[in-house]
């Protein structure tokens, strides 16, 4: 057995806990999880059945933690997990799983499948079987600061533009501000108007915010690849900076996995609660809306549907904010059938959008079929969402299918229609 495989198996042994043992002991092979998975639903290929994606983890569990499994292993009756197997599982654990968690919603015996995929990735990453695209993103985040290799000057540039557009100075590294605002690289590169929107909204609300030159990146590639040690390093940058600046709140950007990383995984990675609160930008906006701070001057007229990003809504628990916010700014909001915690993933979460092999891209486009039908069935020309990664993935899919649907970010849409 190679040293890296041994490390991978040790990592798997380490992440197996009572829930995992209970889940594997409960599975009756009913296959209902497949019906909740966009990759199975769109391809019809049974290999994409979520519980099947966990087979290496299940076998390690059985061979290491059950009496009969250990006996079978001793007499050589069990099939050991090999490097070849993990390599072939890469597609199932990364390309065709966005950790959207929809499968976990339907399992009749209550198996939290996405909880286990997250754990399996620990073993995949450490044994060297993560896809190159995510490896690269992780390496860039550790060495340079963000998954796309952006450095502070790029952020400074966006700040300068936002200052010019809004006529307002933006704080950097300012101690004692109410909020530390985090960005995701995709926002910096593709959606710089997000920062302008925040300036406008904070001014309205009478709140202050700062950016931190040593902690601007909210996303955490360590979590997507499944390397907790790296994830801890990345999240610590934010924690150290926020606690040094003494802010009350850290504002997670729209980006879904960033929210999951900083809000839910972060404290567990560093082993303690923070000295500040993490707030998702939609939670702040909804709070301001309830207080009557966010008054719109006019509404967006065209009919539109909402795409609920998995990590913010279904997995992150920001369930109640999005709909009232969109209703406050859109005149013709059309709810889709599978909405809120039942929404279907864009197809590119969980690091999948960083995988650029031909097969992964083709699969992603195919999996988007379900979103495409949602748009067509609602008969709308506009979709609104609140995750920078979803936006990139969806725009790529629009291009792929030649759809002329308009995609908008919720925060910017609100900012655009705010009273001056």
């Amino acid at each position, binding site marked *: 057995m190679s040293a890296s495989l041994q490390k991978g198996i040790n990592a798997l042994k380490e992440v197996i806990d009572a*829930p995992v043992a209970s889940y594997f002991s409960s599975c*009756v*092979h009913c296959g209902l999880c497949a019906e909740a998975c966009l990759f199975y639903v769109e391809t019809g290929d049974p290999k994409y059945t979520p519980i099947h994606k966990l087979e290496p983890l299940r076998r390690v569990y059985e061979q290491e933690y059950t009496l009969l499994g250990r006996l079978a292993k001793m007499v050589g009756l069990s099939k050991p997990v090999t490097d070849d197997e993990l390599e072939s599982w890469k597609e199932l654990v990364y390309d065709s799983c966005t950790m959207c968690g929809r499968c976990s919603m339907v399992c009749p015996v*209550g198996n*939290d499948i996405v909880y286990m995929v997250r754990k399996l990735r620990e073993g995949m990453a450490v044994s060297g079987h993560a896809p190159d695209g995510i490896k690269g993103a992780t390496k860039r985040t550790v060495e340079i600061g963000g998954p796309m290799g952006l450095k502070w000057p790029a952020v400074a540039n966006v700040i300068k533009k936002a200052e010019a557009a809004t006529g307002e100075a933006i704080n950097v590294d300012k101690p004692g501000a109410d909020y530390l605002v985090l960005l995701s690289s995709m926002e910096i590169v593709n959606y710089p108007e997000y920062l302008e929107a925040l300036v406008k909204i904070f001014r309205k609300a009478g709140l202050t915010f700062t950016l931190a030159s040593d902690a601007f990146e909210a996303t955490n590639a360590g979590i997507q690849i499944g390397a907790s040690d790296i994830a801890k390093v990345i999240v610590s940058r934010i924690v150290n900076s926020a606690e040094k600046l003494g802010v009350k709140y850290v504002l997670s950007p729209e980006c879904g996995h960033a929210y999951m990383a900083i809000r839910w995984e972060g404290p*567990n990675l560093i082993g303690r609660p923070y000295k500040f609160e993490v707030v998702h930008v939609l939670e702040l906006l909804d709070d301001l809306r309830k207080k009557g701070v966010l008054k719109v001057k006019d509404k967006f007229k065209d009919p539109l549907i909402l795409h609920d990003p998995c990590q913010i809504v279904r997995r992150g*628990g920001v369930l109640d904010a999005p709909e009232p916010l969109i209703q406050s700014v859109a005149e013709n909001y059309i709810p889709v059938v599978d909405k809120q915690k039942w929404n279907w993933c864009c197809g590119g979460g969980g690091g999948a959008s960083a995988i650029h092999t031909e097969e992964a891209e083709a699969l992603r486009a195919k999996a988007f079929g379900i979103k495409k039908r949602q748009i067509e069935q609602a008969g709308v020309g506009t979709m609104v969402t609140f995750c920078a990664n979803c936006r990139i993935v969806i725009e790529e899919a629009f291009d792929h299918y030649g759809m002329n649907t308009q995609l908008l970010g919720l925060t910017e849409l609100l900012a655009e229609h705010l009273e001056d």
Partner: protein
Amino acid sequence: MNEMQFLTWVRGPGLDIAVGIFLLGVLWRLIEIYLLGRKQDVAPGRHREGASGLHTVFRRSVPPPGMVKRSPVSYIGGYIFHIGLALIVFFFMPHILFFKSVLGISWPGLPSQFIDLVTVVTMAAMVVVLFDRINKPVKRYLSTFQDWFTWTLTFLPLLTGWLTVQHLLLPYTTMLALHILSVELLLIFLPFTKLFHAFTVFGSRWYIGKINGHRGVPV
């Protein structure tokens, strides 16, 4: 061994062995699973009504929106044979008498003609779900020896019990002995196969409810 001796054995030593393995097996498996424990979640939780372990233990008994349409046989067949099994095991008068002789407690039963009907319906449902397992690509793909084996283990007590009551195929004594033997096999294998979900289903649902409930998501 004649048929009486056979029946005496399955009622005596056979039953003791089976129940012994069953009880020790269940205990061992529960310890093996739940003593693994889990790390405490130190992220400050979000409270939402309906998001808890206990809520999910009950909620998962009801199909999620749209799912019955996607896999009708799993749900309808599944409900029928689970409810059927429970009715037969716990509300057939001879079974209640057996529990009374072992546990000393009894409860009212259901008319035996009704149990007859339930048994036929339950067997039919099990045949249908078996056919679904063969027919549906995902189920066939997931299936291993254990799936066919546990189906057989569950089906045999139903079939032999029904044949016993109907006085069909074999002399009553032999059929009854076979029925008891089939139950003993079921008991012996239950803790070590997927049939153990009968116990872990509650823990699994509770965990998923609790883990997601911490983030304020009712699952």
